[in-house]
């Protein structure tokens, strides 16, 4: 094979003529994110997270074969943002509750989220009700997590040559469906292969999905010494060094983020040197007594009270930060968003195992807040200045962000600190 020269972002690179761009870039030390791309398959070109420019035209990088003199752009601000946006679309299109996902920590899509530094999605979550199909013999397909990358369709074939998966429907209704007859022919190892090639937690093998213990997760430390670029964090200007006031609250959350706040252990003493707490469950101060520099919000809004508290925080704090997944987009409580409210309430209060017919009601009193039609993320209700991802975010991470915002300290975040689960 002939070696040719081409350019990536203006830099001269060398590769074999006809080589796939993704591989060629990697050899030259340049990373192009991919999800559907799978070495030995013909390029699928379905996910589009590998979008690059070739001689000025945008194209899926995985579909490009290197030719002499090609001019490729990969890391321009426009392309970095477009790729991030495409990944965000995948997050909002499906229902990705990472903390309750078997693949978490081992998931290529999640990992790319970290790589591209997604803290929150610019798009509203769509919360489409999707099925979990447990009918197949060996596997379970969880449509909530499928990104329609087509890998399974092309790669999972029975010994006698039949496809096991295929798309059905079209447009935003497109699904990956299973041929039950063919699936039954798969061997245990073939089924596991299907689970492994799926870049998300959509294909699981029955009885195997918890096989890998948490803590031994392939992506967690793979980039331990790498810092994630959060280039779009803005700098705050404060020169005045007097003690800063903080307020915190937990809305529709589990208090996990607050527990995490306390997790800095003795570090809290340093923090107390720098800041004082106003309204917060940590102090048990119920009402704002002063204007605060920063408000930390855990949890999203699931009832009318949450909305009122959040609005009060916005009024009384200069900077408002959503802490944790629930605050950022609803998180685990938002699992209910894919089901109609009535069904949820009936299930909880009227049709549950312990409720008796005509004995129990859905609680309703003027003193208790009303349940909203869905769980709202905080930035759907008020303006939020920063988002700290994690479920919960780790303590150092939270305080680093806070200190950065308040005192303009140098801010960088290392890979293992950045989590959605």
């Amino acid at each position, binding site marked *: 094979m002939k070696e040719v020269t081409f350019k990536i972002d203006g830099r001269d690179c060398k590769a074999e003529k006809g080589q796939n761009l993704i591989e060629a870039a990697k050899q030259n030390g340049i990373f192009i994110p991919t999800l559907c791309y799978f070495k030995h398959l013909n*390029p699928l*070109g379905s996910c589009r997270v590998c979008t690059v420019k070739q001689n000025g035209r945008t194209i899926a990088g995985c579909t490009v074969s290197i030719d002499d003199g090609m001019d490729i752009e990969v890391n321009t601000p426009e392309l970095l943002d*477009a790729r991030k946006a495409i990944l965000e679309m995948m997050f909002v299109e499906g229902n990705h509750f990472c903390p309750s996902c078997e693949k978490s920590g081992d998931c290529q899509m999640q990992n790319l989220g970290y790589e591209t530094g997604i803290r929150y999605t610019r798009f509203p979550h769509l919360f489409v009700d999707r099925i979990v199909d447990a009918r197949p013999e060996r596997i379970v397909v969880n449509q909530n997590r499928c990104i329609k990358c087509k890998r399974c369709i092309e790669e999972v074939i029975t010994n006698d040559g039949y496809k096991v998966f*295929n798309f059905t429907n079209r447009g935003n209704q497109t699904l990956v469906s299973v041929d039950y007859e063919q699936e039954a022919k798969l061997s245990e190892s073939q089924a596991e292969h299907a689970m492994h090639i799926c870049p998300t937690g959509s294909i699981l093998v029955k009885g195997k999905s918890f096989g890998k213990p948490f803590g031994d997760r392939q992506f967690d430390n793979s980039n331990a010494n790498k810092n994630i670029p959060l280039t779009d964090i803005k700098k705050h200007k404060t020169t005045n060094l007097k003690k800063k006031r903080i307020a915190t609250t937990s809305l529709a959350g589990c208090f996990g983020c607050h527990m995490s706040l306390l997790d800095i252990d003795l570090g809290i003493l340093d923090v107390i040197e720098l800041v004082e707490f106003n309204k917060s469950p940590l102090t048990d101060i119920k009402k704002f007594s002063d204007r605060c520099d920063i408000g930390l919000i855990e949890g999203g809004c699931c009832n009318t009270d949450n909305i009122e508290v959040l609005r009060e925080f*916005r009024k009384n704090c200069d900077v408002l930060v959503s802490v944790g997944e629930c605050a950022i987009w609803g998180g685990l409580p938002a699992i209910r968003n894919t089901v109609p409210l009535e069904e949820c309430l009936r299930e909880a209060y009227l049709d549950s195992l312990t409720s008796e017919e005509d004995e129990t009601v859905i609680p309703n009193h003027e003193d208790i807040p009303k349940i909203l039609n869905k769980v709202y993320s905080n930035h759907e209700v008020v303006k939020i200045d920063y988002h700290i991802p994690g479920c919960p975010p780790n303590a150092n991470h939270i305080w680093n962000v806070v200190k950065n915002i308040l005192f303009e300290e140098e801010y960088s975040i290392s890979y293992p600190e950045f989590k959605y689960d």
Partner: protein
Amino acid sequence: MDRTLLLNKLWEYQHKFGFVSKSAIETISKELNVSTIEIESVVSFYHFFHNQPTEKNIIYLNNSIISDLKGFENVKATIEKETGCNFGDYGNSEFSLFETSCIGMSDQEPAALINFQPFTDLTPNKVRKIITKIKNGENVKDFASKTISKIQFTPEDDKTIIFRNYELGKSIKEGIKFTPQEIIDKIYKSKLKGCGGAFFDVGYKWQSCKSNEDTEKYIICNADEGEPGTFKDRAVLQHIPGLVIEGMVLAGYATGAKEGIIYLRAEYQFFKQKLDDLINEFYNQNFLGKNIQKIEGFDFDIRIQLGAGSYVCGAASALIESMEGRRGEPPVRMWSATKHGFKHKPTVVNNVESLAYASRIIELGEDFFLSIGTKETPGTKLISISGDVAKPGIYEIEYGTSIRELLGIEMSQATAPYYVQVSGPSGECVSPAEFDRKICMEDILCGGSFMVFNRTRDILHILRNFMEFFKEESCGVCTPCRAGNFILNEKVKKMQRGLASNDDVNEIKEWGNIIKLSSRCGLGKSSPNSLIYSIDKFKEYFNLKIPPSNESQNVEFDMENAIHEFDSIIKDTQL
């Protein structure tokens, strides 16, 4: 069975039983030696194939924006009332009702297909009569509407190209006086541009097909005309179909292809028989078949392939997928179709109108063609005008005609035109400030759809209709188009509810651009166009749609709306 016959096979089942059953799918998959899911995936892709039983009469009502402004809602309500069914349901004992994307009757809206027979200019009254007749057991074929569109305008006599006298076989007879290469040179010289929307050079396309050594080549006539608002291909196929067939024969002669296929959209199957009859006439007169006009070795056959309801199948690469019996997903582009197209053989895909022009160029000479129109786009163009105009229909205009002329008293007679959509939802919207723009390569091109809206029409309502269309018609294979158009549609809904801020408007532009940048095929690359352009072109309108913003709140959170559901549940469940 050959996989390329799959769509025909599925049509057989669909027509005979009203759906493609599980057992039918099993039978077919055995025959093709593939898993059943593979056939299911094809069935569920196409709008007109059903995988559950439909009733004796299927009504497909067009929900395009033109239908909408001509009374869609009333007609829909009347149909539901008269049949006792709901749209989208599989219905009761007699009717199944579905909405469908533009069916190519924009000059006669609202229109519907009932058992694939056209019924146009519907009114509640007319609907009642039709349903009664059907209930009385009359055959819809006997009282279907005449759909032939009016040719409202042709340039002064000597400049008309398409809609002039037609004599069967004249172009072919003229063409065979030249060598194949000379035919291509003539087309090339005429600068004829493809009329399917991409305006690709026709001569260049023929040449690159000819240059391939392969002995097996194909000419495909793209009659999928799916862009909402266009009906000019139907007009050509109903008025002068012979021109198209001759164009295909000439393309075959020039490139060396021996087989031609007309990919006819399923919506147009009511005139398929007429086309078949004409094709037979061509065979009878030895303009098709073996040794055409006694030229040794000049063989050419034509057959019609029916589509099955999918806009994206109009895109040449998806069309080929569809003809090969697969889902209409535009494949990852590795080669051009002229190199590896249908059955992986060199293939020319040309639009109906392009082929008609090719015939005329050969018949009338390229110099005549070049004497009309503009420098970059010589000749004329067919435009389908619909919407708020007194004279909807087909206009053959000389390239270089301005939008103002098209709207004017001499032509379509628009009343207070305000928003004009040129080339359909995937094209470009035009505001009154741009009415002097000219239809030609040098300024603004028009694929054929020209929809006019007056001042009383709500722009967001129009845009919403377009976004719903793209959401429905996206093939679903790539993320930006599948998810992105859904998300954009949600934004438009938010705007319609009056909850959008300036940020939302900027986001629509940013997000739209990302979809354009990263989508795989032309559908996604153009779907956000109208939305993005309209925001800049109709600033006044959008300013009114955005409530003044508030410092600390992105938008006024809609508390009423958020607790409404809870309140009504509580009302119903308290003891």
